[in-house]
């Protein structure tokens, strides 16, 4: 059984973000990278499947720059068997990334029985790669899954919908499933795991190796900017009972004209 897990490397939520001078992306030199948190659930699910199917092989795939391979190393230290890195700039669009992932999976020579991903990446929040990839590979896919039960070649998945209700799907493998928080509790990479990960195979492809060209690029970024600083809050003094009516009117007015929330 071949399981592929697509992982993205994203800036640590505590990292200070600075846009590049030309606005095409953010400065990546000083960034601390982590594995996209939703992808951790995907890796954990793959490892849980492997635990009950010892013959299963878990391959982690990432498209991105080679400078730091934190996400792939973490996944292998957690227990994934091998990794593929498709070398690319970190600001590719969703379509190119999906196409590169498809190319990498095909180039690996292993026929996927299951592809797991996170439901979204916390950097650009595009929520596209899982669906685009499933479409390209012509696989059934379910996203935002919070429950997973494999029996034979059918996976029963639960997916969260508006209002907290759950939908239940029975999906035949091969399929693509995108994980949400709550699916499981990702394990830590153990110290022996970190030591072992160094010896695990990491294949490296270029974008052209996996059939992606400049023409595949549908979106180009040009205007990365920091959000405007939040202005200081306003205080209203309503301790004087005689003036309360006036203050309330003032607050309501500002909520309408300035904050535009009512």
């Amino acid at each position: 059984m071949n399981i592929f897990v697509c992982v993205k490397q994203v800036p640590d939520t505590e990292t200070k973000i600075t846009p590049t001078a030309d606005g095409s992306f953010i400065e990546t030199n000083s960034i601390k990278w982590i594995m996209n948190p939703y992808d951790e659930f995907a890796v954990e699910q793959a490892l849980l499947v492997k635990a009950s199917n010892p013959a299963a092989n878990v391959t982690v795939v990432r498209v991105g720059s080679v400078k730091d391979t934190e996400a792939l190393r973490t996944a292998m230290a957690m227990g994934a068997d091998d990794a593929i890195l498709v070398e690319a700039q970190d600001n590719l669009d969703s379509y190119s990334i999906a196409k590169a992932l498809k190319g990498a999976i095909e180039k690996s020579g292993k026929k996927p029985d299951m592809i797991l991903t996170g439901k979204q990446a916390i950097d650009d929040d595009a929520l596209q790669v899982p669906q685009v990839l499933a479409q390209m590979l012509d696989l059934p896919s379910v996203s935002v899954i919070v429950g997973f039960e494999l029996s034979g070649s059918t996976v029963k998945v639960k997916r969260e919908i508006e209002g907290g209700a759950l939908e239940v799907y029975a999906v035949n493998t091969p399929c693509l499933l995108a994980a949400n928080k709550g699916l499981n509790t990702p394990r830590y990479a153990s110290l022996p795991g970190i030591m072992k990960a160094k010896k695990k195979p990491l294949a490296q492809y270029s974008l052209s190796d996996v059939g992606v060209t400049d023409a595949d690029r549908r979106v180009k970024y040009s205007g990365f900017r920091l959000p405007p600083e939040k202005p200081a809050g306003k205080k209203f003094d309503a301790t004087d009972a005689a003036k309360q009516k006036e203050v309330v009117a003032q607050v309501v007015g500002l909520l309408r004209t300035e904050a535009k929330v009512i």
Partner: protein
Amino acid sequence: MEFGLTQEQIEIKELALKFSRNEIIPVAAQFDEEGKFPKDIFKKAWELGLINTCIPAEYGGAGFSALDSVIISEALSYGCMGFNTSFMANDLALLPIVLGGNDEQKKKFLTPFTTEFRVASFCLTEPGNGSDAAGIKTSVKDGGDHWIINGEKMWITNAGYADLFVVYATLDPALKHKGICALVVDGKTEGIVLGKKEDKMGHRSSDTRGVRFNNVKVPKENMLGNPGDGWSIAMNTLDHSRPLVASSALGGAQRAMDLSIQYSKERIQFGVPLAKHQAIQFMIAEMGMKIEASRLLIHKAAWLCDQGIRNTEIASYAKAFASDSCMQITTDAVQIYGGYGYSKEYPVEKLMRDAKLIQIYEGTSQIQRLVMARELLK
């Protein structure tokens, strides 16, 4: 000359820090308040390979260097100095076996710590002698096919949970350090009587007790080295453990600085964040300087261990400097937090209480200076 960590050391540090952030920091204040021993978290850290870092690979350990160990210890202590005292006490007790035991003893006593979660205690201090450790009164007598230990130990970390004790005892107090022996004692041996858990200022989650040994029989083969080798084993242990204890102070100091930086950017006084006031800036600058210097001393002391070069003097520099710095830094962190720093609602008062102990155990800051002077003037 190489100052950077290896890729593997960076990953080990990240893992230990992640463990601190997720598992220790959220609960440390509560364990401190209740004086509760964090057994489950201790066990979880052991499962990840973060505990007993001194056990060599040939006896089932991960085969960490002394430098790796201080990196792990700093990161765990960043979560809680008190938790790290419990964790570190295992290494303190196992190091004499690593350094002074024969192959048979290492297999017998170290390997079980790699296959199941076990707790160990190091018993040197007695009610009547702390700094003057060679003045041991606990006696060891030859009982024919076994040794017999009698006496009282004080301030023993992990005692209430110990599966194994390493006990220092004397053949005859008149022999001074030449009479001291180091023995490995199974925690379940008859005659071991635990005192009540001490109610402490800090490190309140760690389990500290007096331990009485009443005619405790120990197999002959449990003595480390020869009769009388105990003192040199203890001193050798301290050369290895002092960088580790120093790194515990360093982790606490780093936490205090990180919190101070964060708070000083948020709190507004006189219309600007505290961080804009030069008096605050200078305190933070001082913290950074002391932390960096502590880390360099600690890494050098550990590196010397790994090179097999005697590090007594540098290990004492590291231990005294890092623990004195930690005391100053955590005190200043409370100062920067102002009135809020004095409240248990905020994390810095605990750091200040925890810092104090590190200037006391494993050789007080005064004793470290005695060691330094002895080395410098000899």
